[in-house]
């Protein structure tokens, strides 16, 4: 099996953009008001309209913009802009963003419309109110599509859905392809926006509500906007082009199954203590683990790629080796080892 190297990282969260904002982690940025009673970790002003071409920017929703921005950072960090034509892409993403202004306008009237005419009334409202290009901004695979269009990434393209575990599975598949020799260079990651009422509605029952509290005390997750992309590369390919190797990615393990076996499956993957946890809540705690969600909140599909990207930056800065581990709020258990390249 070939060694899988991380040669580029694009990291964005409530703490800001890139290395300086994340190594070391700054104080958490939180917003308790805007989406109360659900606290979130919001994005700072990013000026994404200045880094994504205007024509494309207008056709994307925020999760696509954020992911596309982070993907571009990873490509630049890997000094791989000239290699995108053959670069493969694996993305983890969830359902896209709705027009929640339109939803709210419809909700204000819906139940007052006589039942026999309500369906036709609703459909007319949607037909009149939806922006024609919104659909494309909503589809999860259009994050990958946007990355291909904006950054000219033209190899293979796959998108996985499935909350937190999908982010880990995307990373596992990307690393496995490189290890087995069926890919040389893969761009992999995800991006999630917390500032969305539609996602609060979709995940309401899984969210923490009330005052902010540490992850180790949460039973529901606190969302944080975040995106993590990485360029993974075979060691031979990286050395041949004299690329800087940030870290080596090993042992990406992902599992899922019935609820009753979760703790056992997780224990089989995660270390007995320590490491960097991207867990969304206190269940299945690993003693001594650093809880990344304390600093930046939870980012569903993006959580694990963000954790691994951060670990790569820390290894580059001198950390010996870091086990990144976590689990989905509903299902999926996962871990990976990030270590220096010998």
């Amino acid at each position, binding site marked *: 099996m070939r060694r899988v190297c991380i040669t580029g990282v694009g990291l964005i969260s409530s703490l800001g953009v890139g290395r300086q904002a994340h190594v070391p982690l700054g104080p958490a940025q939180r917003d308790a008001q805007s989406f109360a009673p659900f606290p979130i970790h919001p994005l700072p002003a990013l000026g994404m309209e200045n880094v994504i071409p205007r024509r494309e920017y207008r056709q994307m929703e925020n999760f696509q913009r954020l992911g596309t921005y982070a993907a571009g950072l990873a490509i630049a960090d890997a000094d791989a802009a000239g290699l995108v034509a053959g670069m493969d892409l694996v993305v983890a993403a969830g359902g896209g963003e709705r027009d929640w202004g339109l939803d709210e306008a419809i909700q204000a009237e819906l*139940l007052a419309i006589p039942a026999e005419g309500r369906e*036709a009334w609703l459909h007319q409202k*949607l037909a009149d109110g*939806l922006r024609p290009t919104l*659909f494309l901004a909503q589809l999860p695979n*259009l994050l990958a599509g946007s990355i291909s269009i904006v950054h000219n990434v033209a190899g293979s393209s796959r998108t996985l*859905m*499935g909350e937190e575990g999908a982010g880990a599975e995307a990373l596992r598949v990307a690393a496995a392809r490189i290890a087995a020799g069926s890919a040389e260079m893969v761009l992999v990651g995800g991006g999630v926006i917390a500032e969305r009422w539609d996602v609060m509605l*979709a995940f309401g029952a899984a969210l923490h509500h009330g005052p902010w509290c540490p992850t180790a005390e949460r039973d529901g997750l606190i969302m944080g906007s975040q995106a993590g992309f990485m360029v993974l590369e075979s060691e031979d390919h990286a050395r041949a082009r004299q690329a800087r190797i940030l870290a080596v990615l090993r042992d990406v393990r992902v599992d899922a199954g019935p609820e009753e076996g979760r703790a056992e499956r997780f224990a089989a993957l995660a270390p007995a203590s320590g490491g960097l946890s991207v867990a969304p809540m206190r269940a299945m705690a690993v003693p001594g683990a650093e809880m990344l969600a304390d600093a930046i909140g939870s980012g569903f599909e993006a959580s694990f790629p963000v954790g691994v990207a951060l670990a790569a930056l820390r290894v580059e800065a001198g950390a010996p080796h870091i086990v990144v581990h976590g689990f989905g709020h509903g299902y999926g258990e996962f871990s990976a080892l990030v270590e220096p390249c010998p």
Partner: protein
Amino acid sequence: MKDHRGRPRVVVTGMGLVTALGRDLPSSWAGLMAGRSGIRPITRFNTTGMRSRIGGCVDFPGDVPGRPLTMAQRLVAMGELALDEALAMAGLAKPFPGRLSLGLPPTELEWPARADIMRHAEGTTNRDLAIASTGMPEVHRVQQVVEPVRHFAARYGTRGFPQAVTTACASGASAIQMAVEAIRRGETDCVLSGGCEASMTPETMIRFSLLQALSARNDPPETASRPFSLTRDGFIMGDGAAGLVLESMEHATARGATILGEILGVGERADTFHRTRSSPDGLAISGAVENALRDAGLSAHAIGYINAHGTSTPENDKMEAMAMHLVFGETCPPISSTKSMLGHTLSAAGAIEAVICLLALRDQMLPPTINQTDTDMALGVDVVPNIARPHGFSAALSNSFGFGGQNVCVVLGGAEA
């Protein structure tokens, strides 16, 4: 047992189909061979005022007009039928001894369920609904994107993390591709694969209509999907599901399974041109075909039949025909679009059409493209017009192209005599 690159050969030992033409593989295939259309007026919701009011519907007893099954419920209902059929054909019992990889659409909170939450909310703002929803976990469970794939993983006892693959209209082909790669890497001996689609909800139909993607030829419904014709004006949405049991040839042979066919190669190429249109030079499509042929170790003349993406939109069919000429030269193999009969089953299409190719190889019969009263002769392709045709061939190509520029091609072979 190994292919031309020394990788494990990947064979098909079980197949299942649910389409607008039938709830199982034999009835679906019989309908396709008869050149019958499964397109009819939509009855499970009110289509008044909609541009497109017809579809390849797979309705269930739970579909009360105005209160149809949710997308997730229909995905589960169709997926169970198709995957059960595939598993039974493969002679495998649960728990399934390998992974799960399915092409699936994103689901979301639909309006009937949203109205239920509103009845428990203090007001009508999103905030009011979100707060009310925290006490209604059961409403969420049947709407979540992950619910169908979690359900299938639990039902079949598959191993590892279940893959819900989405590359829009190429999802089913991408799922097969990811399954094939996992078997070739030796990660798993077998994969339960396929795709399901149930996006025919009012809001999704409205979204596609706003993109000018759907046909407005509502009457008569049977003639609306007319790929490669001069009067094609958009696609028709279809429900459907396909299941495939994929195994390494070694695993299938060792357990004495009947080999139904083979996945000879897979290839893809992302288009960087536009979200809904192919690059005008056709190179992203032809590149995907060439990658699939290279992966299969075959030259273009080995392909005896192409199951087209063939959506019946003016753009797709023109670009697809042009790109096939780039690969195959002036004379292409026969190309038919079974979407003329089933509608466009989006996330399931790649998997359904892979099964159709395997059945065509088994019976040495090509399914037709129906509604060919005005075939666009300028495209220069033999579309197998209207009537199924006997044909001797040993390899087929299945094309799938997704919004977002995700082009995936699968090369299939028949069972060896």
